[in-house]
């Protein structure tokens, strides 16, 4: 290849040293990344590969559509519930089922609590070690750490010098034991880490605090869904009936005690995000604001479907509290509407994916998708089919398909939502962005970066926690007004269904725009397709050689040490990759698939 320029504006040069990272860790699922570095250790070519495939939609074929949520929920246990919600929406769309207002509020509370939980756990437990050095925290002065804590977050109760000294002692004992556990073989001498010891100690302390606290956030889903991970959902509403003051309310799913519990958790969630997560992001960003790599596609093409309907059953952009729209070529003045039903808008391509199409120059809309696995390595790959040393990106190289919106590779996720929100004048988002940029003394262009992606996620957690309280209040107000309904069962019985229907459901998953497309025939699933956030972001090249968001974001980043992928991990993690989500797309031809590949 040597040097080529892609239609979406990136110059790729594969002549330099090739570095392979496999597995990429601290993500959901399995992923590989290869880059070429020039003589100054700057990334000049990037190749991202999904390395797993499960084939869930073929498994769905012929099943009861009312059960689909449970299957697709198991696409991902990290964004647990978002696939289930997308699925019940797709089935309800196909069957024309309206849900009660209370069900809408409860679903929104569950979805918003997922946003907060997922973002918080992602930042502290999957991403923080790209910015924070726990070994360096041992050098911190606990008193100075306490002063730092009190200056960045005066309302957080855990801020005494003694508290930080105790945590430091615990970390020291842990490290000195020689059994480093998850910190083993980390890159702790790499100059890419920029925090002073006190900031490292504060952040490591919050790594542990957040690990303790995150389990509380999700308990609202245990109340409404019975368990977490993987709570329960229902086509037509929610399964948790409400009984406020009737006989046997104490044994009912939702009563006053349960709602009080939800309120308590929601308030503590708001406090934790405001007092810990947001201040940490600002504090860490202060030290990294000169490191503005990783923008990739974010300054060009971003996509959001929107989510969180204020009133039930209205999925128009005006009623969605999360932004909707597509931005092309960085033109923030024009936000395009997105139609998930239009066969010309969302299409998936496979010339660089391990699947086969009759005509691979063309893309297919999810309702008409074909998925036939076709695992093969290109002529320039090194190694063998079961021991890959180096991939050949001029051929097929990933279990992820390449979705495109009107032919464009798009970035999705919190940053995409914030950019669309900023462009459409979403008041809350815009205000948050302006305050953050002003606190850091950065221009708007700084948004289009790894740091921007990480910050947008935190801002969104703050928004989501507040909106969770909004919907709890709304739920209670509606019950007070005399409506205790939680499920519409008029069309629950398959005997009431038309013989052939199709539908689409969408959400904004924590990682970005998520759509499920379903066809139902004679009460069974005829075809089921998911196009998920990491399929967009982790997409390989398409027939025109456009690169996807992961690959674009790594371009032109300087690595401090070629053998230590700190910067690669930092930028890939800023997307919060979810590979189990992205690599399972399936189609009508499923049954053949089961036999084609048996060896």
């Amino acid at each position: 290849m040597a040097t080529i320029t892609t239609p979406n504006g990136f110059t790729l040069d594969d002549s330099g040293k090739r570095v392979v990272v496999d597995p990429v860790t601290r993500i959901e699922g399995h992923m590989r990344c290869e880059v070429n570095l020039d003589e100054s250790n700057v990334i000049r070519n990037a190749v991202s590969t999904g390395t797993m495939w499960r084939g869930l939609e073929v498994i769905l074929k012929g099943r009861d559509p009312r059960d689909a949520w449970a299957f697709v929920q198991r696409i991902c246990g990290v964004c647990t519930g978002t696939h289930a919600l997308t699925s019940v929406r797709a089935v309800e769309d196909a069957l024309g089922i309206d849900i009660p207002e209370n069900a809408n509020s409860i679903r929104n509370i569950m979805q918003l609590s997922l946003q907060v939980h997922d973002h918080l756990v992602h930042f502290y437990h999957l991403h923080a070690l790209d910015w924070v050095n726990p070994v360096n925290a041992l050098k911190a002065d606990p008193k100075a750490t306490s002063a730092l804590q009190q200056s960045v977050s005066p309302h957080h109760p855990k801020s005494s010098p003694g508290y930080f000294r105790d945590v430091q002692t615990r970390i020291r004992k842990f490290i000195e034991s020689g059994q480093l556990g998850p910190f083993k073989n980390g890159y702790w001498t790499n100059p890419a880490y920029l925090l002073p010891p006190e900031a490292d100690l504060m952040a490591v302390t919050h790594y542990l605090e957040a690990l303790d606290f995150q389990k509380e956030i999700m308990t609202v889903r245990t109340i409404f869904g019975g368990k977490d991970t993987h709570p329960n959902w229902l086509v037509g509403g929610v399964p948790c009936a409400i009984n406020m003051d009737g006989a046997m309310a104490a044994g009912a799913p939702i009563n006053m005690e349960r709602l009080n519990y939800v309120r308590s958790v929601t308030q503590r969630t708001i406090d934790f995000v405001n007092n810990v997560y947001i201040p940490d992001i600002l504090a860490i960003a202060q030290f990294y604001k000169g490191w503005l790599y990783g923008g990739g596609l974010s300054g060009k093409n971003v996509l959001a479907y929107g989510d969180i309907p204020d009133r039930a059953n209205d999925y128009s952009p005006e009623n969605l509290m999360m932004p909707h729209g597509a931005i092309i070529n960085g033109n923030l003045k024009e936000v395009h509407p997105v139609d998930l039903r239009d066969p010309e808008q969302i299409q998936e391509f496979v010339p660089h994916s391990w699947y086969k199409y009759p005509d691979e120059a063309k893309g297919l809309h999810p309702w008409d998708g074909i998925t036939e696995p076709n695992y093969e390595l290109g002529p320039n790959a090194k190694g063998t089919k079961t021991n890959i040393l180096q991939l050949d990106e001029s051929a097929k190289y990933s279990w992820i398909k390449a979705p495109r919106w009107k032919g464009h590779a798009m970035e999705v996720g919190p940053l995409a939502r914030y950019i669309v929100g900023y462009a459409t004048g979403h008041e809350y988002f815009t205000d948050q962005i302006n305050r953050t940029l002003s606190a850091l003394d950065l221009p708007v262009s700084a948004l289009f970066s790894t740091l921007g992606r990480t910050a947008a996620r935190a801002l969104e957690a703050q928004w989501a926690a507040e909106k969770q309280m909004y919907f709890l209040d709304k739920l209670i107000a509606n019950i007070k007004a005399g409506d205790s309904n939680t499920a519409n069962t008029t069309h629950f019985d398959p005997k009431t269904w038309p013989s052939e229907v199709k539908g689409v459901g969408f959400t904004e998953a924590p990682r970005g725009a998520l759509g499920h497309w379903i066809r139902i025939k004679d009460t069974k699933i005829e075809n089921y397709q998911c196009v998920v956030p990491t399929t967009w972001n982790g997409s390989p090249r398409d027939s025109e050689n456009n690169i996807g968001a992961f690959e674009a974001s790594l371009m032109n980043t300087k690595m401090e040490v070629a053998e230590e992928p700190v910067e690669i991990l930092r930028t890939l993690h800023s997307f919060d990759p979810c590979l189990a989500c992205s690599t399972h797309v399936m189609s009508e031809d499923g049954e053949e698939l089961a036999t084609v590949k048996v060896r």
Partner: protein
Amino acid sequence: MPETFYEVMRRQGITRRSFLKYCSLAAGALGLSPAFAPKIAHAMETKPRIPVLWLHGLECTCCSESFIRSAHPLAKDVILSMISLDYDDTIMAAAGDQAEAIIDETIEKYDGNFILAIEGNAPLNEDGMYCIIAGKPFVEQLVRVSQHAKAIISWGSCASWGCVQAARPNPTRATPTHKIPGIADKPIIKVPGCPPIAEVMTAVITYILTFEKLPSLDSQGRPKMFYSQRIHDKCYRRPHFDAGQFVEKFDDEGARKGYCLYKVGCKGPTTYNACSTVRWNGGLSFPIQAGHPCIGCSEDGFWDKGGFYDRLTDVHGFGIEANADEIGKTAAGIVAGAAAIHAGASVIKRIASKGDDA
């Protein structure tokens, strides 16, 4: 000297006296005589952390997500003070070569003395390349590590039974741990559930560390302490089943009164798990309490045992006594003859399996 559980508790301001009291409570909770309390205390004070390699195959990470929700003990304390979680690609700092080097190092340094925990399973089709780790099939990594482990924990329904990717027609030939060709002949503890209950996961670990032995397993390889009873056996809605009071459809009067969910598809009568006893997320609730029928997620092949809203039998109009038995019989028949009825004299009829000593 590695930090011990005792030191953790001390640092949290807990005195030795309270610690010993905790230990005797723990012994009580585990059904042991108070004489065991000193033994538990000793184990927690002195034990160095056992290395754990936690591998991930085809899965959704719900087991890890469940694990970090453990209320007692906290996941933080398990990771910092009880085990040495040296490899877990979901949370480890290292990646690529530096991550894979840890496996070699652990095998060399702790051969036969570490625990292999598996989340997910290995696909065997396409020469294993539906799940690739470091350029090679995941199944190779799994088999190799198993040969050097002391024992294997199969987390969740994926590793235990195959779970969702192994549901018909199982396109990738996703295969649970114990059926992987070449897997070492080591004890395998299955902790099924999609996911398993967090506190069950951490209890299995703390039991092994505390008693320095593996928990007793039933004929299917599950710890008896958590998997010897059906959800139905201890369900708080069981009296409504016995009284013939059922939810007929979602959000009806019965649903609002917390009646039995059997008629809307509850698989509690055929599902072995601790949901109705230990409950979820620190004992807060469980699916039936929140109004949804049990979908049977800890049972082998639960995805292929009929719809989640199909009742286990079509018997209508049963009442209190004999009809409850009818239900029991039909329900037990669903699990392919593995279960039988032991008719009891009381109102509450127990359904027990031949396969274990429930």
